[in-house]
């Protein structure tokens, strides 16, 4: 449930679902997101679901904070709708040239890279949200022992397809971008397809993702 709605500036509602980050709260956020999206409420220009918040941006020419707040407070959620979710397998190559931060993580976690990858590949991850850059999925939760901080100084360029870890989450850089996550491998799969306007993202909020390790030669042949 939404615990509180406040204004973020003069053209957005900030819906707060609490402070914790877990799948249950995030599923609530996604449920609201999908219901509001479907209702096509006048004036709403964008919805940004995240772990435990939903930001609703609107066109101040067409509506305002108080109007929209009332509508959201009295919103009837789509009850029956079982949120559609897919299970997606993403191949990753963890060769030295792709695993930019693995050595540092070995030292930090004080476990071997074999062990790190074993733990990483053994879990199924939940997609909490997509964004920051187009199509980038925020996935979780990592094994407790793989929690790490972001780089102190973010990289100016992280290669497309890089898979990164930070806090209890992992992500995939959908194209070259600055960023501060710890990079452990790279996928040859195109996660964001700008030419597919109806479904540009391969991974969407609510989906589950499993990673599968591939060799360098499989990686190179992948897009042939």
């Amino acid at each position, binding site marked *: 449930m939404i615990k509180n709605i406040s204004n973020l*500036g003069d053209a*957005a509602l900030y819906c707060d679902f609490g*402070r914790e980050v877990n799948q249950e709260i995030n599923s609530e956020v996604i449920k609201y997101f999908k219901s509001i999206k479907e209702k096509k409420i006048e004036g709403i220009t*964008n919805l940004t679901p*995240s772990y435990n918040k939903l930001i609703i*941006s609107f066109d101040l020419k067409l509506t305002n904070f108080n109007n929209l707040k009332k509508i959201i407070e009295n919103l009837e959620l789509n009850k029956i709708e079982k949120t559609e979710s897919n299970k997606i397998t993403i191949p990753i190559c963890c060769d030295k040239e792709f695993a930019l931060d693995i050595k540092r993580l070995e030292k930090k976690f004080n476990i071997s890279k074999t062990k790190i990858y074993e733990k990483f590949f053994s879990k199924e991850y939940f997609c909490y949200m997509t*964004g*920051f850059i187009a199509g980038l999925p925020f996935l979780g939760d990592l094994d407790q022992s793989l929690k790490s901080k972001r780089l102190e100084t973010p990289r100016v360029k992280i290669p497309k397809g890089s898979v990164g870890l930070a806090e209890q989450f992992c992500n995939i850089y959908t194209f070259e971008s600055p960023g501060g996550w710890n990079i452990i491998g790279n996928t040859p799969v195109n996660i964001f397809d*700008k030419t597919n306007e109806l479904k540009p993202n391969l991974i969407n909020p609510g989906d589950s993702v499993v990673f599968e390790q591939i060799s360098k030669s499989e990686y190179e042949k992948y897009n042939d």
Partner: protein
Amino acid sequence: MKNTMTKYYFEVIRSGINTTFQDLGRKHLYHIGIPFSGAMDNRNFILANAIAGNKENTPVIEFAYQGPLLKFRGEKVNFNITGNVNFKIIKKQNQIEGNCYKNYILEDGDELDIISTNKSVYGYLAISGNFDVKFQWNSCSVNTKANIGANDGKKIEKDQLINILDIDSENSKKSLEYINTKIENIRVIKGTNFDYFSTEGKKIFFEKEYTVTKLTDRMGMRLEGCKIENIVDTNIKSEGIIKGVIQIPADGNPIIMLSDHGTIGGYPKIGVVISADYDKLVQLPPGSKIKFQEIELADAELLFKFYQMETKNLVLKIK
């Protein structure tokens, strides 16, 4: 009368610093990670199309600081430039110093030299008619980070061609008397993490002057000045961002999110610039001094109404 001819185009002799196609931007895509984009200075975008006699959401060329040098090929085309811009038209016989908010005619072989924006950042070039551009998610707006929009999502480059799809061949004499005004006080509504900052930090934010730095582009504006102390946490759990949000990262210097911003971020939000001040904010070049002024939601809404009314009145004054 509309003429559809493929032989109308511009040759790009000089690209300028950041020259892109823009319109009103794209909606309903934040959840995918795609920002609004669109013309940075909404009012000057609207005026450019209104003076050109175009529909409101017609693609125009936005440029920053130094604009492009273009050679026109075709019979003739009307154009106008909005903002605070120095430009000239180079004809075979003579040169004309251009004035903003006024239609001019380019004939075959004429060059349009958009020399620079004057004490501002963005300017707009509209032709009476349509550029031949690709739309993605109903918008031509170029987002160079994701390579989305017209021109393969890239800046306009030297030696490329800018094709014109159709033109309105009537000679338009329309113009507008208008001078852009600058602002130093940026009005701000308190952000959702306002209480992450020390009493002293909050006071500094609304009292001290900040300088716009060179690390400013269509994604964000980095400011420099008195550091703002965070007493809770320099990170928040990643959540949505909208344009105008002022974040304070660990180094204590504010960053204002602009039209091509990342859709999700993890820095505390101290405030949000009001919608009425956004167009003028983005026009502040590096080195400008600004001060933040706190304002309540109801006042911000009223100021936006005035701002909208003012824009409408300007459109009505075009003659």
